[in-house]
Structure formats: structure tokens, C-alpha cells
């Protein structure tokens, strides 16, 4: 069922900018049009690009926001997971709790 909803109506998570729009809904309680406009502005792209996996694969790569990894699409040396979240927090201008915690635990 999760696959069904992801394909029928989901933004696509980190295949696109779904995770970034979701962060603005969670952290700031933004309604969808506001959250999409905010993220598109930060990324310098159109709102439609946000759920376009072709466009977002390029944009995420350029900005180091983490990309889906598979056997034919590997990006060693590029930020992903926690390291990408450092950049996401800075890009969106919202604190990410796990980033703050990592910074504290690592003594950065």
C-alpha cells in the first residue's frame, strides 16, 4: 500500500524534493503550497521541479543534498545521510535535531 501511495500521489522523498518539503511542513507547519514555494526558492528551481526526479537528481547532486544510491548511480565522495543533512539544515534555514546532536556528540 505504501508503494501504491508513493506512486499515486507522493512527492518522491529524496528521489525528488519530497523530504525537503516535508521538513518545512514538520518544522514550520507550512501548508503545501507555501512549503513548496519556500523550497523551490531556496533551490532556485520551479515548483514543478520539486517532484521531478530527473530535475532533482541534478539539483541534489549540485548542492550536495544526498541522492538515491544504486549499482549504476553511485556517488562516492558526495554528501549523503548525516553529512547531507548538515547542508539541508543550512539550505532550508531550519535546525535539524540529529545534526545538532551529531555536532555535540562529535565535539565539532
Amino acid at each position, binding site marked *: *500500500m505504501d508503494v501504491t501511495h*508513493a506512486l499515486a500521489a507522493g512527492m518522491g522523498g529524496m528521489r525528488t524534493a519530497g523530504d525537503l518539503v*516535508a521538513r518545512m511542513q514538520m518544522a514550520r*507547519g507550512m501548508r503545501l503550497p507555501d512549503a513548496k514555494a519556500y523550497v523551490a526558492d531556496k533551490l532556485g528551481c520551479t515548483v514543478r521541479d520539486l517532484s*521531478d526526479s530527473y530535475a532533482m537528481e541534478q539539483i541534489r547532486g549540485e548542492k550536495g*543534498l544526498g541522492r538515491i544510491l544504486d549499482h549504476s548511480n553511485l556517488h562516492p565522495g558526495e554528501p549523503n545521510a548525516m553529512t547531507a543533512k548538515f547542508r539541508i539544515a543550512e539550505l532550508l534555514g531550519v535546525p535539524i535535531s540529529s545534526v545538532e546532536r551529531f555536532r555535540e556528540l562529535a565535539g565539532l
Partner: protein
Amino acid sequence: MEAKVPTRMGDGFMVELTRSELRADIETATQEAARKAKVPPLAPDELDHLLDIYASRAAFTAVDIGDQVVLSCDGGGSKMTGTDLLDLLESEQRLGQDILELWHIEYSYKAIKTILPFQQQVMQNVQLMCTAPVQYGAQPNLAFYSKPDGPADNWFELLPRGDIAGARAAIDEAMDHATKDFIYVGEGMLDAGADGMDFDTTGGAGDADFFSTLRAVRHLRGKYPDAGIEVGMAGEFVIGVHGELEWEGRRLAGLWPRDQLEVCQDAGATIFGPAVNIRTGKSCAWNAAYSITVTKPCMDVARIPVHPNVGEGVGGVPVNGYPPEDAASRAAKAHVDILRCDGL
């Protein structure tokens, strides 16, 4: 003779109905929803669109390009148990979930309290490996605080005896224990790095279940101003088990989704999830029309994102362990297209 199209009943069983029969189902449902919830019925163009979605023979349907919404979920995406990190990585990397959720098979705050350090460690590990936001989810389940499972007298035994005062005192005692647990687990998981908390199936034990959750939401909002807090409901109508509980002057018993949303956003939630339970004896077209009619007034008053529940047995999705994709995708498209909701 009018052609028939394959469609589903609320339990998932496939039947064949004509376009006229589907239209009759949709029109009947929106009128019944309007009467019960005291809200406007769907407009003619909305009914036409709903009919087009459900009278299609397509095996799958989807929203238009650019209309995609944020998906939150109760439970991890693939719901594999005992493999939390791998499950969430699969949900992120393969399913493309927008918001991930860490959960435990003992899906009640009361139970999670006893294994909090274990769940905190999993959250810390998950956060190192995942890029998408990860919230922590569980259910309030207030009834677990009554005997024989909990410390308070069992109000469901006291009420049939006519001991209203005793039942309300027992509920009050249970609510105090419950709110403390919700806050204890919420603080623990947010301190461990969770991006948010999900209070799933809120109100399942009635107005007191809802009230004890709202108190925890308000506390967590005050202490964690940047945390996501999702309140997903148990049903379209808050049952008045206590009957006298009010949130800032508004009686909780009997609230429909628009009023549920208003108290949730006032308490500090950042995502609201209305839930409208399926009628298994009605078609999915009937159920979607009913759900959308009841939920639609939320969209006019929402200051926070609204994610209607379209999981198993709610929002027009059949109550079936494997909800058929034709029915689940129609429910998703119908809610997004007509409600213009912020997520699912």
C-alpha cells in the same frame, strides 16, 4: 444495456457496477455525510470528477504531474518488523517516502515507555543513515491505563452500572498517567534526534484519549519549537466516553474533523491527519465520497498541513491486509484532487 465496470467494496471484494450505480453511490454518500457532519455536500463538478475516477477501468490511477503531496505514515514504509534501520532505508531509498517513521510492534506509548532507551538507540542509529526526516510514532491507547492492564478503575465496567462519577474519576486518573507517558516518550525520542512525533489513532478511546494527547502536544510544542508533531485521528467523530472534557472551552465529545483540526492546531500540532472509517458494505466510491465530504471543511480553516488518512480501512481504502492498488490509488487521487490537501 449500460456497461459495467469492475470496482471494489469497502472490504476489498471486487464487484461490477454501472456508471449510473456508481453515481448514485457517490450522491447518496455525500448527502449522508453532509447530514451527519452538518457540512455542505460536494459540488456537482466534484461529484463528476469523483465519478470519473471511480468509473475508470484502469488498474491504477495517479494525481497530475506537479500535484504530488507529502506522504507521512504510521509505521515504517514496508512495515517489516525487527529490522528498523533496514526498513527505513528501504522506505527512503526504494519507496521514496517523504517522512519516515520509526515505530515498534508494541505500538502504544505505555509500552514504549518500558523500552525507551532501546528505541532511542535505534533512532540515533537511523538518523546517522537516513536523509529524509524520521519521526517516532505510537498510539495513545488510553484504555491500557484501566484495570486489568493499568492502575485506574475500568470505566467501561463502571459506566454500564450507572456509576458516572466513578467512571469519570477513573478516566481522570488514567489521563494523568497517559499524558505523563506521552511526554516521557516524546521528550526521550526528540532528545535522541527524532525530527518529530506522531500521535497515531488519537481518540481511539474517546474524548479522554484525545484530551490526554492534546496536553502532551502542548507540552512538547513548548519545549521543542522546531519539532514536527503529527496528530492522526482514530475516526471521523470523537466519542464522548467522559463527556465533559473541554479544550479551551470547546467540548471534545462529538467533534468532527474540522473541529478536531482546530483544537490540534491550537495545541501546537504541525500536521493533522483526519480519519474516516470505511463502511465495508458500501462501495469504495461511496466511502471516498463520504470521507471527502466530511474532511473538506478542514481545508478552509487549516493553518497547518492536513494529511487525510488513506491507510487500510480509512479514507476509502478497503479494510484488507493487502489493500488493492486500484482502490488505494483511486482513494489517494480522489482526496488530493478534490481536497487539495497537503499530504496523505
